């Protein structure tokens, strides 16, 4: 706990910040001696403050400076708009000097690009990928008044299964799962956030939702019934829920938050940041903070992040026409 005097000091700084900028930006750490890195690094997160990815980014921004030369100040900025495209575009347009780090859900950024084409305003393959975190399997969960217990039940329903969807990721993964499993579906779009979509599921707006495992797990007591995990192996949180693969459908659909730099960023800067992020994910204090926030800490190095990104790009490219068709039906 801070002593009152420190609180006052913090507040004075905060009032000064408020007076100089209106953006929801935050500063972490102190500027130190000169280094290859700029004195201030801004993390751009393309969605609103408060969600899981935003919290993860803020925790990284808070703890990362101690592993970077010069102990730079870090700032988190929510560059919201156009379903997440605006933030990723902002990174694409930024100076490649290490002053801006993008943080985004990889499937969201990629599906946006694939469904929007040139309208997306960026080419994700051109970004310099650093590392990734917040890896989780996607799931399929049914509402309490539905009879569905496994993926085959969706096939046998005899009608198009309704899904409450929030945006690009759950829509794309629903389309892919429906294609692989072979059930007809219809999308009910426009839910502003996964909790609202789950409320819609419980209310009966739709029959099924598809969200990440840790998130869906929060609503089991309310009647949300998981019927499949799109992963290679069962998750320890849900030992009794069979994977899609076990049910005969080899789906491996995950989300993650990737950290990336604008195209043309110097390798030296990228490597310094990669090294810092790698050390950060071995820091007990940081990992405890992630756990305290209710998340399971995960980490993938650059090579693994690139592999996962390439895999996702291939997956989305394969189903691009199906995703576009589903989006067009919504229109």
């Amino acid at each position: 706990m801070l002593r009152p005097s420190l609180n006052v000091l913090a507040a004075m700084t905060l009032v000064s910040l408020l007076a100089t900028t209106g953006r929801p930006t935050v500063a972490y750490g102190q500027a130190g001696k000169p280094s290859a890195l700029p004195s201030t690094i801004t993390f751009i997160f393309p969605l609103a403050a408060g969600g899981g990815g935003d919290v993860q980014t803020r925790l990284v921004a808070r703890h990362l400076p101690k592993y970077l030369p010069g102990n730079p100040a870090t700032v988190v900025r929510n560059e919201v708009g156009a379903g997440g495209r605006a933030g990723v575009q902002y990174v694409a347009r930024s100076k490649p000097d290490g002053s801006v780090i993008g943080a985004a859900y990889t499937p969201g950024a990629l599906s946006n690009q694939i469904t929007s084409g040139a309208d997306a305003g960026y080419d994700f393959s051109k970004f310099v990928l650093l590392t990734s975190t917040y890896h989780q399997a996607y799931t399929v969960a049914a509402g309490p008044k539905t009879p569905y217990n496994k993926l085959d039940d969706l096939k046998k329903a005899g009608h198009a299964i309704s899904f409450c969807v929030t945006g690009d990721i759950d829509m794309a993964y629903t389309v892919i799962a429906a294609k692989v499993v072979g059930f007809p579906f219809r999308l009910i779009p426009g839910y502003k956030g996964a909790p609202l979509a789950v409320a819609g599921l419980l209310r009966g707006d739709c029959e099924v939702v598809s969200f990440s495992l840790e998130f869906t797990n929060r609503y089991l007591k309310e009647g949300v019934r998981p019927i499949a995990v799109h992963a290679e192996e069962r998750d320890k949180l849900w030992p009794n829920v069979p994977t899609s693969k076990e049910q005969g459908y080899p789906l491996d659909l995950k989300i993650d938050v990737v950290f990336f730099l604008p195209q043309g960023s110097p390798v030296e800067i990228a490597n310094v940041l990669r090294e810092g992020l790698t050390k950060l994910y071995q820091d007990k204090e940081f990992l405890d903070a992630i756990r305290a926030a209710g998340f399971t800490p995960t980490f993938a190095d650059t090579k693994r992040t690139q592999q996962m990104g390439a895999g996702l790009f291939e997956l989305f490219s394969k189903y691009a026409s199906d995703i576009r068709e589903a989006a067009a039906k919504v229109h």
Partner: protein
Amino acid sequence: MFEGMATAILALSQPHVIGILILGTIIGLVAGVLPGLGNVQAMAVALPFTFGMDRITAIYFLSSIASSATFGGSITAILINIPGTPANATTVFDGYAMTKRGEADRALAISATASALGGLVGIAVLVGAIPIAQWMTLQFGPPETFMLVLLGLVTIAYAVQGNVVLGLVTAGVGMLLSLIGNSPVTGVYRFSLGSKQYLWDGIQQIPFLVGVFGLSEAIRCGMQGGAAAQVGEIARTKLSGILRGAVETFRYPYTFVQSTIVGVIVGIAPGIGGSVSNVMAYALAAQTSKDPMYGKGSAEGLVAAESSNNATIGGDAIPTLAFGIPGSAAMAVLMGGLTLHGVAVGPWLMKEHMEIVWVVVFGLTAGNVLSSVFGLLVTRWIARLPTVPMALILPIVVMLVFVGSFAVRQNFWDIGVTVCSGVLGYFLIRYGFSPLPFIIGFLLGDAAELAFLQSLHISQGSPLIFLNHPLSLGLFLVAVAVGIYPLLRSRVIKEA
């Protein structure tokens, strides 16, 4: 439940927590006063400063910021015709008119009192709703939300003054402007002129509102000269006058109750917030008010505007704490703050962490009450601002307009929107149009579109969905009753 309350109260007895509450309130007030900033921005900036605090102190800090900015936004609305936040959009109509009459002190006192009382009612509903909060949250699906917004839209009929047809056209133009950009349901771009830099994401509320109100008034005053208020009248400001203004709020119990009910219900409904409740309550009160000065400097109008938007904050907290559904952008940041401090928000919060729920309740209460108390304390001094000659104050007002417009997203195109909407607002007023229907159309248009299209997606195109749900049907009947009431009343008056 009571153990949790005891923990929250115990924390309140610590001096540093009280200090943090005062600090949070001041920060919220400052953010509210500065056009372009609001509780969302202030809370987001404040988040990292809570890392060094213990969990309960941090939540007190964030909650007090959340509930104090709305009153702060009324100060600039009243004094210089710039709504500090979108939730103060209709506060300008009566607040600034009173300022021009030399009654800024009275207006500020009414606003402070109505804000505090409205906020307290909202929080009282939150506390009362704790046992049924989850049930309440699930009642508001897309059809119910659409009917609630429709109720707001039918109030345009009351907001139109003079030429009804032209007034409705104005409202329609406001609605069309709200539909520009990326559709919230389909992702299709409408009226964005192929823009990949600005219009694809629609017209932002703050740059638009500060233009329509602040810049248009600056243009008018610049042409007219003088001062916004008469020096002599403001110079008579006395504490007794401020107290009389505060007491005046109690003269409109019906308007107050009606407006706080609107505020709370809008708060519970997901996806719509203080800006919607503010225009709905204001326009509804216009129908019931017998004050001929309504919209031109009426205390009743100010009570409606400022009690509703503050009552919404308590309503917003219900889905947030009951189900993890952020009732507003500020509540989303509060949820993020809770998560960062190891309290994952979801349906279990009210079962497993009642102490956190009570901390939020007390934090919101403290921010709400303290901000109004601070407002009353400084009224004597800030009420003199409008007596400053226009030549001195206009550059500051124009600077505030543009800084406020730019500060939201640091996008120069927002300044362009402010200029355009300022010129539009100036000509609207000059040629005798009330900006109210225009603003109602703009603030409610996109919420109506989202809820309407979602409902039709659920029902696979059948409009009967709006009548099959009991709450939706009830709201529809209320909207019909509210819509035909002025027609019936005018017929009765004619026959008499």
